[in-house]
């Protein structure tokens, strides 16, 4: 009798007292990331890893690109544009401070934009800021941007990391001691290992920020990425290596988010070289590519086929995958028509698995139609200086690469772009697109542009990659879709 009583009493005591683990709500997260940023100033260097750490966390921009790719307010509460979409007036949020105590106002915006446009600026989107005819600040919370041409995407473009608003006094040291208006401050940076962000107590909306600390660990090896999640060392891994994702799908401790992107993975063809300047040869290469097999083999199935330099879900998207479909017989015919026999092409592959694995598949597919691809593996540094950069010798026939920038049709119009397309008709069409303010008209023209690129077989357009994110089941608020490289910690919380 007494024994029973003791058991009941003890059980009751346990039931009454909340378990310590539950009482103390977890408010920190460890996130894994593949690459370490070289610095923390997204306005002076291009590395995507900088934006992944800083954007919307340390720094803020006038606008915010949301999960679905639409644009919402951030440091600008609202904006209006003139009907020709050349001049935009932004109303800035009031009472905002930088993390060093300085006030945020139109002067800081003007300073940031002017700095990005300066002659010695190393901003990734310097051309955008140089295309601003004037940036004026009629009062402390209004900024007027007048563009040299119509730019319908300006609110989107200013929401990217390159448009981060910095504070004049601290701008020079942002590389190592970033100062922004965002909800997080840099806590510590152990080079080669991790970055810690701490919640900034004076953030204008501090109550809404759930996580007080975010640790970002840099883990590049795919097997180590998986092990870090499985062992519980890491709670979230956005854009994890695709080949380790399968094991997490059936694991009840994790959620796998498959997000769309604005990226385009392509087989680039050097049109400066013979016989690749012949559209029939390029069409033959496209007809040799089996997109489905490529997505399965090079991206573990994480991709949607595309037929042009544009992604599904964007304004005016048309499906162009039927223009040069997979048809090896047609490929052989086209090659014969062009009088090309025993075609041997160099295929330079940068390090990511989608390129290296994709290259093997491409070489096999090309072999079936009688084209020999000579694979050459290169590092990024080599690839940039030999294949891609505007001042490089463009020393390649074929290469595989994923273009992650959203809305980069403009690149194709640049005369020293690595594809070497340089088609007057396309450039004119592009000028027309940016000069068309109404959305329906622009959508139609964008469709025409996509079709033109597909018909001219400007590149082997393969697929829009999907980016998998693996997170602990209890972690909420992590974005599924990633229109650009960033992690919005202000939305994250533990269940």
């Amino acid at each position, binding site marked *: 009798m007494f024994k029973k009583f003791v058991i009941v009493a003890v059980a009751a005591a346990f039931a009454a007292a909340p378990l310590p683990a539950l009482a103390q709500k977890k408010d920190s997260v460890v996130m894994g990331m593949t690459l*370490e940023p*070289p*610095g923390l100033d997204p306005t002076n*260097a*291009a*590395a995507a890893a900088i934006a992944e750490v800083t954007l919307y966390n340390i720094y803020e921009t006038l606008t915010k690109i949301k999960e679905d790719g639409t644009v919402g307010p951030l440091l600008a509460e609202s904006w209006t544009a003139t009907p020709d979409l050349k001049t935009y007036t932004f109303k800035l949020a009031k009472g905002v401070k930088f993390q060093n105590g300085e006030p945020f106002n139109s002067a800081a915006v003007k300073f940031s934009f002017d700095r990005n446009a300066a002659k*010695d*600026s*190393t901003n*990734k989107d*310097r*051309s955008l800021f140089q295309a601003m005819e004037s940036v004026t600040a009629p009062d402390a919370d209004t900024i007027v941007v007048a563009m040299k041409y119509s730019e319908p995407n300006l609110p989107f473009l200013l929401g990217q990391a390159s448009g981060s608003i910095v504070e004049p006094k601290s701008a020079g040291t942002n*590389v*190592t001691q970033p100062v922004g208006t965002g909800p997080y401050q840099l806590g510590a940076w*152990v*080079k*080669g*290992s*991790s970055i810690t962000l701490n919640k900034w107590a004076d953030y204008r909306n501090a109550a809404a920020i759930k996580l007080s600390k975010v640790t970002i*660990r*840099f*883990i*590049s*090896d795919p*097997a*180590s990425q998986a*092990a*870090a999640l*499985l*062992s*519980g*060392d890491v709670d979230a891994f956005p854009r994890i290596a695709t080949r380790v994702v399968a094991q997490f799908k059936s694991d009840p401790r994790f959620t796998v988010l498959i997000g769309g992107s604005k990226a385009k993975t392509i087989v680039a063809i050097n049109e400066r070289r013979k016989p690749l300047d012949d559209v029939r040869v390029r069409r033959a290469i496209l007809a040799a590519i089996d997109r489905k097999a490529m997505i399965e083999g090079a991206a573990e199935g994480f991709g949607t086929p595309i037929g042009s330099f544009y992604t599904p879900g964007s304004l005016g998207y048309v499906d162009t995958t039927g223009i040069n479909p997979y048809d090896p017989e047609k490929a052989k015919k086209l090659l014969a028509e062009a009088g090309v026999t025993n075609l041997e092409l160099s295929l330079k592959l940068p390090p990511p698995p989608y390129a290296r694995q994709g290259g093997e598949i491409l070489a096999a597919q090309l072999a079936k139609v009688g084209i020999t691809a000579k694979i050459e593996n*290169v*590092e*990024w*540094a*080599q*690839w*940039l*200086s*030999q294949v*891609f*950069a*505007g*001042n490089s010798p463009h020393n390649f026939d074929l290469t595989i690469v994923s273009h992650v*920038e959203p809305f980069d049709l403009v*690149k194709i119009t640049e005369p020293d772009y690595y594809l070497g397309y340089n088609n007057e008709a396309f450039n004119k069409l592009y000028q027309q697109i940016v000069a068309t303010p109404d959305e329906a008209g622009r959508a139609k023209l964008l469709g025409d542009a996509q079709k033109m690129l597909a018909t001219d077989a400007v590149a082997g357009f393969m697929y829009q990659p999907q980016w998998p994110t693996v997170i602990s089941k209890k972690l909420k608020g992590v974005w599924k879709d990633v229109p650009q490289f960033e992690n919005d910690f202000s939305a994250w919380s533990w269940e």
Partner: protein
Amino acid sequence: MTLLATLVGASLIIFLVLDALPGNAAQMLMGADASPDAVRALTVKLGLDQPLAVRYLQWLKGMAVGDLGNSYAYGTPVAGLIAERLTLTIPLAIISMSVTVTLALSAGIYTAANHNKLGDVGVMSLTQIGIALPNFWFAILLILLFSVRLQWLSAGGFAGWEDGIWPGVRSLLLPAFSLSVVQAAILARVTRSAVLEVLREDFVRTARAKGLGKREVLWSHVLRNAMIPVMTVMGLQFANLLAGTIVIENVFYLPGLGRLIFQSIANRDLIVVRNCVMLLAAMVVIVNFVVDVLYAFIDPRIKVHDL
């Protein structure tokens, strides 16, 4: 004197080989979409437009006065970056070397003493497997067992020395062990054959004939004589160990010297790479020198000036 000449020779080779690498730091830092003008401006700023010989002499001069320059990528002094990383790599090397020596000597001596018995065959088969194991693969197996399944140790990362010695050592245990296994397997085999070799010598038989016990002969006469080849291999293994850290530090994402070299090569941050490689070369040269000096201690017949 030979020491210095070796190092200068090494520096020349390091400099020339790295300079021949395609790609440049300015292009990497500026990214894919940078304008050629901006890349050129940065090239000048980093001093990469200077002639080869000038840059080499600048580097030598810098090393002589202890100024290694600034990293292209991080913009901070190279000396500081390296010093930071050494707080991990040196303890890692010491722990793995100790594990290697402990495992190898005990296995080697045990098998030699039990020559051709079951224990000898068993341990020698294990070392055969140990030699065949690639260390990064073994590292992943260790992670799967100790971090994923048992959850005793973390799967990677470095706790640092701020919270005391134990958390730091703890995060180095798996990496050190994965580095040691191959090395220990090789060293164990060397130890075994060296000990067996000495056991056949006349003086061992004499010692036994004098009435000394088996154990006493082994510990006080055989081992000392067997140490010379073992020390030589140990010195060579130190170099292997340093090379191994490049792979292992990547598997365990440890911020050590190996990972710094790996990342810097990818970034074409050559000023960091050449100083790191130079440091490794110097370490190997010095360790081999120390081994040579130790020979004289082990075997007094070898005189230091013979070296």
